[in-house]
Every structure is written in structure tokens, then in C-alpha cells.
């Protein structure tokens, strides 16, 4: 690792001031992503701002909204009683990520900010538009088994690796951000970006801003009927090939409202709005689930090694909905 300076501010204001003052400074929380990337020379901030001592760890419920501090640990959130009862989907998604040790270090803010696991992004001798804009995308014609089937561009086909954010997308969370000019609220679906012409930019957080909290609205119907299903190369401790976060408001056999989001398939959490609209007011049947899955895959495009995702993704959607409704 290259040498760097280190500071440990005591207030959010001081942390924000530090990243505004120094363009080469970067926040560090659990370090589970950043330290890895720094060791490999993929990222090389010259100053680290340690935010782990900031008072941003609280999880509290008020007026039907659960606010989770950005520094709350992934394990604390997953095991928290309020979260398990009111947002079981989030708890499941967090527990499906990484390992017990990593969840004990990783924070909610860091999780939302984690970079892609594309092997070409990690390999500093290979071209990668995300790591080094203008050099090209090695994955496009390379080994792209883990890569996107939705919303990619000819500049980048990497996926966002977060499990947590897939659940947050289905639950319509809001990211709370602090900057030099004060606080800003960003709906989770507008937080991450598609690669387009600028894959170096993962999300819409501006330079000099930090995440202070995530807010998630509580929906009792969804809490009763939600499931995170993750398909991976081994049973645990592996990133998603595809994952599905599903929440249903169901009365009798009729679906009042459906929320569906997928992971492992795009540069951002991928909401399946067409499938959701289709399922609204329909009966919970395998045929309807299959039709919803087919609609969800309408604009999918694969790149060779990840062709299998065109079959795995709809199968996972159907499987998740079947498991959830017990049919």
C-alpha cells in the first residue's frame, strides 16, 4: 500500500470539511472494500478520513420510517430486532452478503458505496474504463460471466455487487447525504447510476458529500411477505450471480402490490417495474409469475459467458415468488 495520511474527525461537519478541503482525501469506514482496493493499487487516496467514531450508528423508528445511521454495522442491522420484524427483507439481504467477520466490519454507508468486483477493474494492468477512463472495457469481449444483462453500455458491463442495496431498492429507501451546503435526500433508485459514457462514476454522490443515514419506510404487508433469494457459485460467502428481492402485498390470492428488484444483473440495483405492474391485481399463480419474469427480461442482453443469466434470472424470479407465496 502506498503511504497516506490519516485523520479521525469527531463530527460530521469536520469529516465533510476534510473531504471538501482535500481532493485526494477519502472516507474510510469498515475498510473491507477500500483497504482491499488500496492494497491492489486500484484506489490510492493520499489521506484517509476515519469516520468510524462519528455518532452515526443509531437505528430508530419514528412515524413509520426506520432510520439507519451510515456507520451502523451490517451485522448490527441484520440482527437488530426492529429491522428483523419490520424489514425482514433487508435483514435477509445483509445476512446473504460476505461473511460474519466482514459483516462485523462493513457499514451501511460503505456497503452502498462499494465498488464493482469486475476482475478487470481489480487488475491494474488491464484496460478498464471504470478504473482508468478511456482505456476500454476488457470485460465486453473478455471473461464476463459475472457481468450485467441490463442497462450496460459499450463502455462498461460491470455490476454493482451489493446485496443490501437490492433490498433497499425493493423497499424504496432514501439515502441521506451531508455536504458543505447541508443535507440532501436521494431516493435509492437515483443513487446508483448506469455506466453510460462515464462508468468511473458509480453513483450520484457529489465530491465532498458523505452518507449519514438511510431511511426505509415500513410497510406491514411487505414485512409479512418478503424474500431475498441469492444464487451464487457456492452456498455462502460468494457474490450473487443473480439475486431477487421480492415483497408482496397479498389479499386472499390476489396480489395488491408487488415490489421486485434484482442484483447481479446491472450497474445499479435493478427494479422490475414492468413485472410489478403486470402482477398488480393478478392472482398468485405460477403462470402469472412466469409471465412477469418474461416481461422483466424483455430488454436483457448478454455478452457470451453470462448468457446463462438470461435463463437463471427469470427462473430465480419465478422461484422466489413461488417460495414466497407457498405455491
Amino acid at each position, binding site marked *: *500500500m*502506498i*503511504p*497516506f*495520511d*490519516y485523520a*479521525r474527525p469527531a463530527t460530521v461537519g469536520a469529516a465533510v470539511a476534510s473531504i471538501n478541503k482535500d481532493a485526494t482525501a477519502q472516507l*474510510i469506514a*469498515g*475498510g*473491507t472494500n477500500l*483497504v*482491499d482496493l*488500496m*492494497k*491492489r*493499487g486500484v484506489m*490510492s487516496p*493520499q489521506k*484517509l478520513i*476515519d469516520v*468510524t467514531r462519528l455518532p452515526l450508528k443509531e437505528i430508530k423508528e419514528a412515524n413509520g420510517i426506520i432510520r439507519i445511521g451510515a456507520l451502523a454495522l451490517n*451485522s448490527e442491522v441484520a440482527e437488530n430486532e426492529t429491522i428483523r420484524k419490520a424489514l425482514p427483507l433487508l435483514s435477509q439481504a445483509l445476512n446473504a452478503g*460476505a*461473511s*460474519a*467477520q*466482514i459483516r*462485523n*466490519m462493513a457499514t451501511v454507508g460503505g456497503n452502498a458505496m462499494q465498488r464493482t468486483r469486475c476482475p478487470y477493474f481489480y487488475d491494474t494492468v488491464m484496460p478498464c474504463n471504470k478504473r482508468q477512463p478511456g482505456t476500454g472495457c476488457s470485460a465486453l469481449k473478455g471473461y464476463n460471466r459475472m457481468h450485467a444483462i441490463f442497462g450496460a453500455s459499450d463502455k462498461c458491463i460491470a455490476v454493482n455487487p451489493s446485496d443490501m442495496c437490492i433490498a433497499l431498492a425493493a423497499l424504496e429507501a432514501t439515502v441521506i447525504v451531508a455536504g458543505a451546503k447541508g443535507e440532501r435526500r436521494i431516493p435509492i433508485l437515483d443513487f446508483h447510476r448506469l455506466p453510460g459514457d462515464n462508468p468511473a462514476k458509480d453513483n450520484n454522490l457529489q465530491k465532498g458529500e458523505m452518507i449519514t443515514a438511510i431511511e426505509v419506510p415500513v410497510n406491514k404487508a411487505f414485512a409479512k411477505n418478503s424474500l431475498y433469494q441469492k444464487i451464487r457459485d457456492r*452456498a*455462502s*460467502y460468494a457474490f450473487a450471480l443473480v439475486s431477487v428481492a421480492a415483497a408482496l402485498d397479498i389479499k386472499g390470492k390476489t396480489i395488491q402490490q408487488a415490489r421486485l428488484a434484482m442484483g447481479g444483473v446491472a450497474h445499479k440495483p435493478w427494479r422490475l417495474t414492468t413485472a410489478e405492474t403486470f402482477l398488480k391485481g393478478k392472482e398468485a399463480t405460477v403462470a402469472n409469475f412466469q409471465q412477469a419474469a418474461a416481461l422483466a427480461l424483455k430488454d436483457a442482453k448478454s455478452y457470451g459467458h453470462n448468457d446463462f443469466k438470461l435463463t437463471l434470472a427469470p427462473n430465480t424470479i419465478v422461484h422466489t415468488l413461488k417460495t414466497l407465496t407457498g405455491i
Partner: protein
Amino acid sequence: MTNEHEDDVLRAAHSRRSFLKRTTAAAAITLAPAALVKAAEDKLDEKGAEYFEKLPLQIEVNGKPYSLQVEPRVTLLDLLREQLHLTGSKKGCDYGQCGACTVHVDGQRVLSCLSLAVMQDGKKITTIEGLQNGDDLHPMQEAFIEHDGFQCGYCTPGQIMSAVACIREGHAKNDADIREYMSGNICRCGAYPNIVDAIKDVVKKGGVK
């Protein structure tokens, strides 16, 4: 497993290169003849060491307080192994992928290879060396021996630190639970079934403190 020496040499070379890249002097140096580059490099390295000052760090390791000075880039794993000579915690991958470096920080299991030492200021660290009580092995250590929970033994300190935490967290309810919550510890020798048996045995005999 990674060859640690080679790894260190590579890292030193890499950091020197990166450091050169970042200094304004480097722009001129890249155009100079090799001997000159070498001389300048050596000098810069000295300066570099002075410039990136060490920071104070107070930690307790296995019940013993330490007052140390560390560079910010030193990981907790390297601090334990290289400075405190506690070589029980292993460097399997150094990238968070194997669990061989698992230690407890304030009672919670974490990966020391992805933890910066300087960020642990004021915390209590427990390593495999701190688990036993005087001459008595910890019940989990006993159980690993009794159940043949290892072959080469490289992953074992991490497995044991993780196993103790796994029970303490209440995640050792049954085989499936143990497998899921021990998945962060990879064993290349495949001692998994015996590790599960060892953990179940400790649970059966009353768990851990």
C-alpha cells in the same frame, strides 16, 4: 498460500514506485539515467519514511496494554505479526477472502488483514495466543484436537477464533447454522465436517464464555 516474503518484497517495490509517481521530483527522475534514478529513489525512500510520520496507537492485545507508533498503512494483521511477533494469526490471502487472519476486536470477530491498525486505537484485541487460560487450552482448542479439526493447520487459528465467536453470537444452533456462520473461514484441507463436530461438541459441553 501466499509466499509472505515475496509478498512483502513486491509490496515494498510497489509502494516505492507509487511514491515516486506522486512526488513532483518524480517527473524529472523518470527521464534520468538508471543509476541516477536508483540514487534518487533511495534518498526519496528515506524522506518518504520521515514524511509519512508514525501515529500513536494505544491498544490492548491479549490483556496486555501497548503504547505503539504505527504508520497509517499498517494493517492490524501486520502489526500483530511483524511488530508484536504474535504470528498465530495467519496471512492466507491478505484480501479478506479466507478468514485465516480472524481476531476479536472488543469481542467481535473481524478480519485483521482488512483492518488498519491505527483505526483500532483504544480497542481490546484477542488473538489465538490469548485464548488459553495459563497452561490450559481453551475448550475450542481442545475440541479441534479431539475432533481432528485440521490437517495442515494453517487456517486453524482463524477457524478457532471464528468458532468461539460463532457460539457466542448464538449462531451454532445446528449444522446448517454453523456451516453458514463459519463460511468466512476457508479450509483448503477440507476439514469442514470435523470443524462442525468440534463446534457442536463445545456447545454440548456448555458453550464458551
